[in-house]
């Protein structure tokens, strides 16, 4: 069974349903959805990874982001409705990646988020550098250059300096020697591939 979907229409549906109810919400997405929306790659994805939420000011885009768990109640109500409407899993939009808040996001992550609006939904997209940080971390965790995280990382066309900076940030997340070694291997492999 194909468990990957084009999630742009469901996200637009969330925005339309929120607007219909005169509500709004703001989410920052990472992973395949962010890469798709940024035009870095075009592939279906299993879910929408929400790494942060934000309060929506009366005018203009959101500013301050926060841990996405739990999602705002009005957003939580709409998500299963859209799952029903598009016949996709109920957890198609989830905050699993929000666990990153336990150890911290890349420095000044929030200042680089760019926002776009669809109906009552603001979608925040991290900066390319932040995606490199997160993807290097995920690719190292996945442990294989065949993983989609490594593929995504390469699609971001990271420079050596960007990978090294990302590696330093990962060290603040997990300072174990084993992790340092794995990150170094992934960085080396990525640099070779880029070259």
């Amino acid at each position: 069974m194909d468990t990957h979907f084009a999630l742009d229409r469901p996200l637009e549906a969330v925005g339309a349903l929120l607007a219909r109810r005169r509500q709004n919400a703001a989410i920052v997405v990472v992973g395949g959805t962010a890469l798709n929306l940024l035009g870095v790659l075009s592939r279906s994805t299993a879910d929408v990874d929400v790494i942060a939420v934000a309060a929506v000011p009366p005018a203009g885009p959101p500013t301050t982001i926060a841990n996405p768990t739990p999602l705002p109640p009005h957003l939580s109500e709409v998500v299963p409705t859209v799952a029903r409407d598009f016949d996709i899993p109920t957890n198609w939009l989830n905050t699993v990646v929000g666990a990153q808040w336990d150890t911290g996001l890349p420095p000044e992550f929030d200042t680089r988020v760019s926002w776009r609006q669809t109906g009552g939904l603001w979608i925040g997209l991290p900066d390319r550098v932040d995606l490199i940080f997160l993807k290097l971390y995920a690719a190292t965790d996945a442990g294989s250059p065949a993983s989609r995280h490594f593929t995504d990382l390469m699609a971001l066309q990271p420079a050596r300096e960007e990978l090294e900076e990302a590696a330093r940030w990962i060290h603040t997340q997990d300072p174990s020697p084993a992790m340092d070694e794995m990150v170094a291997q992934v960085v080396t492999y990525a640099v070779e591939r880029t070259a």
Partner: protein
Amino acid sequence: MRSSALHNAVARLREAAVDAAWRQWNAVFTLARARRPAQGIVDPEALLVFSMWLRPHEPRVWSAATVWASVAPRLLSVQRTKNIVKVFPADVTSSLDEFAHTAVSRGGDARWRSVVSGSPVMSPPHRTESASPRFGTPAALMLRIRLALGIGIKSDVLSYLVGCVGAAATVQEIADATYYYGRAVRRAVEELAAGGFVRARSTVPASYAADLEAWARLLDFDTDNPPAWHSWVNLYGFVVRLCEWLPTLDDAAPVVTASEARDLLAEWAPKLDALQALAPRPGTHPGEEFLKYFEGQILAALTDYVASAV
């Protein structure tokens, strides 16, 4: 345009429902004249409350109800009317109030006092009304059984089971169809079974059926073309709900309209077999694609169903 297609589909369904209501009045009341009277069982309280809702736009239907209030309010169940009104928008209560006033003051039926707000003036019933109920049509079966057994749950449970044309129904199914409370239905149908008026089937849960041939002989209808029960409360209720929903859409995005149409289907399909059968297979009409299916298949099929059920 998509939205006009939806409006047209709802308008056709509404027209079918209005036509059904008029044909039902014709089947049970000499006041109404229709080319083809209803053949299926007329649910008088469903017809009454739907006529109330139609009042602003279909005065002839409402006028049939008001004259009925003068000449035959005793054939209606006050409690069941109260139960059914809850299915419809709140603004029908003003018409119910007026109907009840007429039923008390002109129809001489004091039971309707419990519905009236304020104090109705009792006056002798008018004997000058020329209209009268019809009991000779198969569609009037519910009224005929009430004439025999009185207004009450047992009469209506019997009508429902006869209208199931031999099929058995559980207590829950009977309660859902007749709009009486399940506990009261259970007691009524068990007593009807004990008295030999219906048969209990040893199913789990227990179910009950009427002997179609025996009732056909008693009530003089053709077993090959028996008067059938259709859930007019829910058919009319769904039509009303659709008509009330439509103006709220304004410039709603198609994906929103489709989603709310799904909400309606999810809410009403469990109450309407005709709708349940039309529910799409999962994954076949994602997002706004459902709208086309809703207009072109579900509403069109339901329009045909209403026209044939009456």
